[in-house]
């Protein structure tokens, strides 16, 4: 148009547009990464218990690197709940005794916004902060991987509550409170083939996350070895906000396998199972430990998940007394009737693992904590009994097979490695 000062042509406009989109992405990531003030069990910060017993002269600080905002904010929320419960409880019960002196436990939380770059920045910030003795989190595998090099280089112990990514504990400084994907994929494959007598299976997984990919590939491997046939091995890119899986589901429905494995985040499961049924799939669904959120049951208004199986970390029907007490406390503290999900429980255990390590080491020096972790030979957590006898940061612990029936997660079986 004539008479205008700003003459862009179409091509420039598109490039501008695309750069703006990149800008959005960057700002969105950066914006999510607000620094949180030290929170939790600071005296007077949260919880009367902490306040009442909060006579500690000194506090031992750890860093909490969690997914408070971003694609799956429920992870960060659950993580904070579990950590707060454990920290407040520890402080109410006299804190951590090192060399005859009682210290309070406190943490500094940094939100990683479900963003790998920010996860790394947070880890570096914790590493540079001399007060911080160790890091708890992140929970998601992608986020953890982004911090692995930093904690290894800086020689600081990191305990991930929930990341089941196998290669994470290749670092001598990374520990976890859960089993790994290799175990999870293996259990699912064995259970499907041996107990469910399923001879054919299909897999649809989000290839943009190593968690989903790890379980899918391990399942594929073990299931094939056992003699089963994986008829369709399909993927999608979760990073583009994918919600339409109809093309893949039509293929899967045409093959009608006995089992459809969906090792994906629970928020995606309803869309996936609905579309599978709409395309005519009639077999059974199987899932991984991300399924363990009761929202899945609330959303399943058409009972499409009836009979579905998923592998989890614990179940209250077979819970120890300590775990039952934990569940009851959770109901009371958060004023809900919902049971704590796996993330809450594993974060709670992760804090106690750290406490045990510090007590074992008799010191809260960073390197001493690692020795303290490796010295744990049997840790009884709410999610089960763990031993670190593999010489690395992955514990040996049992898994629970859950079945969805009558709108509930029912206990089906325990698998001991």
């Amino acid at each position, binding site marked *: 148009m004539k008479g205008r000062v700003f003459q862009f042509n*179409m091509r420039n*406009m598109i490039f*501008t547009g695309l750069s703006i989109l990149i800008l959005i992405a960057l700002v969105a990531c950066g914006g999510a990464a607000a620094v949180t003030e030290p929170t939790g069990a600071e005296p007077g910060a949260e919880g009367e218990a902490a306040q009442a017993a909060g006579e500690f002269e000194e506090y031992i600080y750890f860093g909490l690197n969690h997914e408070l905002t971003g694609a799956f*904010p429920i992870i960060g929320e659950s993580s904070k709940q579990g950590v707060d419960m454990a920290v407040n409880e520890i402080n109410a019960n006299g804190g951590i005794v090192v060399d005859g002196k009682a210290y309070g436990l406190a943490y500094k939380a940094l939100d990683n916004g479900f963003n790998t770059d920010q996860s790394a920045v947070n880890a570096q910030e914790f590493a540079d902060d001399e007060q911080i003795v160790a890091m708890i989190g992140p929970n998601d595998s992608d986020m953890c991987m982004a911090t692995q090099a930093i904690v290894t280089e800086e020689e600081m112990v990191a305990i991930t509550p929930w990341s089941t990514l196998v290669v994470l504990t290749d670092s001598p400084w990374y520990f976890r409170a859960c089993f790994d994907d290799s175990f999870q994929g293996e259990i699912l494959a064995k259970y499907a083939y041996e107990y469910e007598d399923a001879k054919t299976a299909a897999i649809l997984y989000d*290839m943009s996350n190593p968690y989903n990919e790890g379980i899918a590939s391990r399942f594929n491997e073990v299931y094939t070895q056992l003699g089963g046939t994986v008829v369709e091995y399909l993927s999608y890119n979760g990073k583009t906000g994918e919600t*339409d899986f109809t093309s893949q589901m039509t293929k899967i429905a045409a093959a009608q396998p006995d089992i459809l494995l969906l090792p994906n985040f629970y928020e995606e499961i*309803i869309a996936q199972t609905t579309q599978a049924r709409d395309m*005519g799939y009639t077999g059974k669904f199987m899932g991984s430990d991300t399924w363990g959120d009761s929202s899945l049951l609330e*959303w399943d208004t058409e009972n499409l998940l009836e009979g579905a199986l998923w592998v989890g970390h614990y179940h209250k029907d077979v819970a120890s007394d300590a775990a039952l007490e934990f569940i009851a406390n959770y109901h009371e503290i958060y004023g809900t009737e919902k049971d704590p999900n796996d993330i809450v429980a594993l974060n709670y255990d992760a804090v106690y693992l750290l406490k045990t390590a510090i007590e074992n080491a008799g010191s809260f020096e960073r390197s001493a904590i690692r020795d303290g972790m490796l010295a744990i030979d049997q840790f009884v957590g709410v999610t089960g009994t763990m031993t670190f006898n593999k010489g690395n940061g992955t514990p040996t612990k049992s898994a629970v097979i859950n079945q969805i029936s009558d709108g509930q997660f029912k206990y089906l079986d325990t698998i001991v490695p």
Partner: protein
Amino acid sequence: MNINIIIQQVINFLQLGSIYALCALSFTMVYGVARLVNFAHGSIFGVSMYVLFFASTFLFERIKSPWFVYVIVLIIASVVTSLIALLLESAAYKPLKNAPKIAVVVSSVGAGMAIQYLILNLAGSKALRMPALIPNLRIELAGIPVPLYKIMVIVIAILTMVILNVIIKGTRLGVAMRAVSQDRIAAGFMGIDTGRVVSASFVFGAVIASVAASLYGTAYSIFAYDVGEGIIWWSFIAAVLGGIGSISGAVLGGYIIGAISIIAPILLPVSSYKDIVAFAVLIIVLLVKPTGLMGKKDIEKI
């Protein structure tokens, strides 16, 4: 591949393509008339999802007829999003009328994020499931049971496009919109109130986004506060592919992206390569025809 699977995949394509086409259309409306790349549009879509959710949850407890509820909540969502779009226009765009284009674009990004985080703070981070706005029935189509919602998504989307076409081609407002789109200054000389026409384009964009949101919610059910982010990506790409500002281009772009999303996973050995195919097609089209498939050379200058 047997015929049943082909029919199913064609329906899948039409369903996804219709939703992309509507989203691209709503995105392109504002650009076509106001020459503004409105990145806040994804958030308008998000607001629409939440209004539809809360209104339909409220109404379903009182009224049992789903079609009636559908129409009512669509009207409510359209009104609310139109008001927000108008507010956005007067707060974030009009004051920047004489500023460089890039400032307006950045302003739209900022406004969009402000709305998105407002949703996050008001409605929380937890994902929600949209109530079934279209009755959960199955109909027989050439011997295959097809869920009714899939057919309705296609029908409602095409109906919306036809109505829009009639308005653009046949009404005074439509003529004024086309005039402003062709030459805003000349249109002003001809006595057209260009400011009002631009406002009308924001309202049109918001209403079409609400229709798109209702179909999206019906088809994919689970959503969270950031639902608009993925949508804005694909509608922007579809709009650019078809020729941004061009209405038929947006529809064409939407169906092309839909077709790639369905066909690529069938043909490619790795189904997740479909995004790469979509972007490769975008780049190739832009290299061959920088204005997009239906873009006109004389409209493109700003």
